[in-house]
Every structure is written in structure tokens, then in C-alpha cells.
């Protein structure tokens, strides 16, 4: 008995045209669909955070230490030239940027976790555009980072940092924080799609954070750096995040390249990462 000759026909009959389904038949890919799909993803992510906010609190520990210990000590030494600003005022936006980076950079572990479970399969098998799925995650990571901004702003006030507290500046800070967290979490997403396992991901995450942090103007000005490091700092998106925050957060703080450039760099970098992640996302299940 051979079954080999059993009709060379495609799996799952081609002769049964799908019944018309006005409900789900609309073409996806329009802006509205993109917004619906990404907000669906962002919505569930945010629900999960509000359900278990312990993570938000533990994330506050590290920046608090930086400001209280490192900031206080270095303010006394006056070893770092920070112009009109006190060292603490100089570094407060840097600590916020750092805290955004450090928590966003491990975001990819959640993607690997979801892959191991099968949640990623469920997402990818839906007709939602991959870009929308990635963007929804990016937005939720961005909004999540706002809690860090709140904590660091309050702490800075307590420590006597002269902050800009007008609504426009505060909204500006919020936008920049969301943008920065979206950027680095999507960067992390990309890495997760490339390395695919938790072990390798953790290793790479550790390797990346410190260089990104130290090769930026977060805790010392670019002017202090040796020439080669300045070059690295200029291509490091974290520098632009710090820049924008420094100007928007602190009275007398100034971006070294101007706010519009900072915004442009952050937005473009974020866009590139989302596109890249959308391309790589399906690969994580292979």
C-alpha cells in the first residue's frame, strides 16, 4: 500500500473559498488599524504593570543611590566642571536617562519569556502588522518609564536641584522619557530576536549597559572626554536623551546640540529600531 501518490494537493483544501467575513475582512495596514493593534498591545502591557507595581518601586532604588551617594560625594569634590550648574544639578537628568536605559535594556527578556510560553506565536499568527505589535510594546515600555521620571524629579527637588517645573518643560520631559524608553526597549527587543535565549541575552545586556552609560554625557560633560570617547558619545543615543533632559529638566541646563537635534536623533533612532524589530520579530519563533 503506498500513500505516496496520494494526490499532490496542498494541505488544507484550496477548493473551499473562505466564506465572506465582513467582520475581519478589512485590509489591515492602514493607520487606523496600526493604531488599534498597537494600542491593544500597549493596553494589556499597562494593565499588567498596574496589577503588579512592585517592579516600578524596585526600579527606583538604583537612581536613588546614584543621586544620594554618588551625586552628593561628587558635588563636594568639585572634580567635574559643570559650568553654572552644581554637579548634582548636572547629573540629575543623567541619572534619569540612565535609569530609563537600565530598565529598558532588559525589556527583551520578556519577549524571550513570551516566546517560550507561546504568547509570541499567538501574536504573530494574528493578522496584526508586526510593526504595530512592536510599537505597542515600545509605547508601553515608554509609559512605564514615566514612573521613574516622577521619582527622580521628586528626589531631585528634595535634594535642592533647581528644576524647571512649568507645564511645558514637564510635558517635554515626559515626552523625552517615553521616547528614550521606547528606543532602548526596542533596541533590547532587537537583541532578543537575534540571540533568542535568556542566557545569551542576559550576558549581552550586561555588556551593553555600562559602555552606553559611560560613553555618554550622563555623569560628566563630553568636553572632559578624550577625543576617541567623544566620537563614541556623539553616536550614542543616550547622549541625546541626556541632552534633551538636561535642558528641559534643570534651570540653566543646556543641550550641547540643541533640543530639535536631540528630538530628531531620538525619534529617528526609535523609528529605525521599530522597523528593525518588526523585521526580526517573526524570527524569534524559528
Amino acid at each position, binding site marked *: *500500500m503506498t*500513500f*505516496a501518490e*496520494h*494526490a*499532490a*494537493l*496542498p*494541505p*488544507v*483544501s*484550496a*477548493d*473551499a*473559498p*473562505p*466564506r465572506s*467575513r465582513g*467582520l*475581519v*475582512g*478589512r485590509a*489591515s495596514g492602514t493607520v487606523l*488599524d496600526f493604531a*488599534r*493593534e498597537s*494600542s*491593544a*498591545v500597549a*493596553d*494589556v502591557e499597562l*494593565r*499588567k504593570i498596574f*496589577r*503588579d507595581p512592585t517592579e516600578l518601586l524596585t526600579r527606583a532604588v538604583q537612581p536613588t543611590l546614584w543621586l544620594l551617594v554618588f551625586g552628593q560625594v561628587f558635588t563636594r569634590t568639585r572634580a567635574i566642571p559643570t559650568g553654572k550648574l552644581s554637579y548634582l544639578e548636572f547629573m540629575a537628568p543623567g541619572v534619569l536617562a540612565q535609569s530609563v536605559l537600565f530598565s529598558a535594556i532588559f525589556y527583551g527578556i520578556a519577549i524571550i519569556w513570551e516566546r*517560550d*510560553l*507561546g*504568547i509570541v*506565536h*499567538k*501574536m*504573530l*499568527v*494574528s*493578522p*496584526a502588522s508586526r510593526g504595530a505589535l512592536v510599537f505597542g510594546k515600545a509605547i508601553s515600555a515608554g509609559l512605564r518609564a514615566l514612573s521613574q521620571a516622577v521619582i527622580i524629579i521628586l528626589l531631585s527637588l528634595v535634594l535642592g536641584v533647581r528644576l524647571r517645573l512649568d507645564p511645558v518643560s514637564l510635558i517635554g520631559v515626559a515626552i523625552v522619557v517615553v521616547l528614550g524608553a521606547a528606543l532602548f526597549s526596542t533596541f533590547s527587543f532587537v537583541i532578543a530576536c537575534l540571540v533568542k535565549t535568556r542566557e545569551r541575552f542576559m550576558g549581552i545586556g550586561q555588556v551593553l549597559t555600562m559602555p552606553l552609560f559611560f560613553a555618554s554625557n550622563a555623569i560628566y560633560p563630553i568636553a572632559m572626554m578624550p577625543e576617541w570617547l567623544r566620537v563614541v558619545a556623539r553616536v550614542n543615543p543616550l547622549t541625546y536623551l541626556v541632552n534633551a533632559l538636561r535642558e528641559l529638566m534643570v534651570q540653566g541646563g543646556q543641550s550641547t546640540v540643541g533640543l530639535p537635534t536631540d528630538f530628531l536623533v531620538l525619534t529617528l533612532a526609535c523609528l529605525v529600531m521599530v522597523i528593525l524589530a518588526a523585521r526580526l520579530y*517573526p524570527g524569534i*519563533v*524559528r
Partner: protein
Amino acid sequence: MGLTRRYGTLVAVDHLDLRVESGSIFGLLGPNGAGKSTTIMMLITLLPPSEGGAMVAGYDIIRSPASVRRHIGYVPQSVSADGALTGAENLRLSARLYGLPRSERAERISEALEFMGLSEHADALVKKYSGGMVRRLELAQAMLHRPAVLFLDEPTIGLDPIARHAVWERLRELRQRFGMTVFLTTHDMEEAEALCGTLGIMHSGKLAALGAPEALKKQVGADATLDDVFIHFAGASLGDADSEGGRYSDVRRTRRTATRLG
């Protein structure tokens, strides 16, 4: 047609030719590592074939994967419902990702919950669900948009007999009520016999047998059981690493799933 997937030199699925009748329940059997999951992954467009192609629900998996995705549902072997969300939230996510119109979402969701016997647990977190409830919720998510074809990878692995029968019953009814074609993989001969109108037995990436359970049994012997059929066609000689229990990674994944659902 000639569906093939290679991983390096390993040919996971080797020129598979297969046709599944619309509105039937089709079971793909085979030992671990025979290529069942890989086949499904290609049919649901999550894995590009190395060679060949297929039509699913009337659409080409290579040329129009987005159309395929719109008309299929899929329940993976591992747990795909999000434990940190409630049952209703999981369903709402699916409804929005599949673009069900806002006006119909609530109705569809409560209908699906009721159909799967989960109405009372709609607002409980899924991590509090039993294994059988999680599976039924996943079925609810996969059927919400009334797909033409429902793909299930080991739908009852790790479930107790009661939960298993409940899933079978729901699948039969999905087919009857909505005319859905169900395509599932299984190791479970009882499941294959109880549920499937047609069976395909895979061995080393090839289709070793195809037919109704009764017909297959007759081919093997007068009083053959489906276990005999399986052994006959997927014939394992002990010590053959490929046929005896699959590769390590498969085993690990299967056991992990069983633990999670149990």
C-alpha cells in the same frame, strides 16, 4: 505541495504532499521530531518553507501570508494565554488584534466565553485557571474571529481525562456549528481515534500513511489497534535517535508544557 523545511542538513519536513478536506478534523500523528510541529509552523506562516508551498483556507502561504493569517486560528502546544491577564482581557486582546468591530467585540467575547464554559471565570486571572480552563480559553481566543481553519499543536497534552474530553467536545462542536476545518497534531492515539476523521502519519519528515482511522487499522491487520498502526508506519527501531522519542529539545519542550498545564 512538496512542502519542505531544512535546518542545516536536517530535513525536518521532506516534500510533504497532503490535502485536507474542508470541514473535517484532521490529525497529524508521528513520533517526536517527525516534523509535525514544523509542518504546522509553515502552514500558519510563522516559518517559511525551504522549498514547496501550500494553500491554506484558499490562500497561498508564501504569496499572501497576511490573508492566510486572517482566516486561520492557532493554538500552540505551549501556553499562549497570558497568565497575568484575565480571561476576558486575553479575549479582548485577540478581538482587537483580529480587528473585530468595536460594536461586536463584547458580544463575541461573551459568546466565546460561554461556548467554552468560562463565563464565570471571565474576570479571574488566567494564572489561577486550571490546565483545562487555560486550553479552553486558548481555543476561545483562536475561534473568536471564526477562522476557516483551526490549527492545534497537541491540544490536550498534559490534561487530565475530564479536561481532555471537554476539549474534544468543544472541537467537535466548533466544526459542526461553524464548519471549521480542524488541523491538529497529536501523540495520543485515543485522541486521534475519538476526534479525527482523517489521519496522516508522519515519519522523518515524510507522510507515511493517510486515511480514516478505521481504514488504517484494516490495512495493518484484522484486529490492529491505532497503536499498532502508529508503530507500523512510524516504525521505531530502538536506538534510532531520531525515531525514539525525538530530539532532546523536543522532549524538553513537551515536558515543560505538560508541567505547566498539569
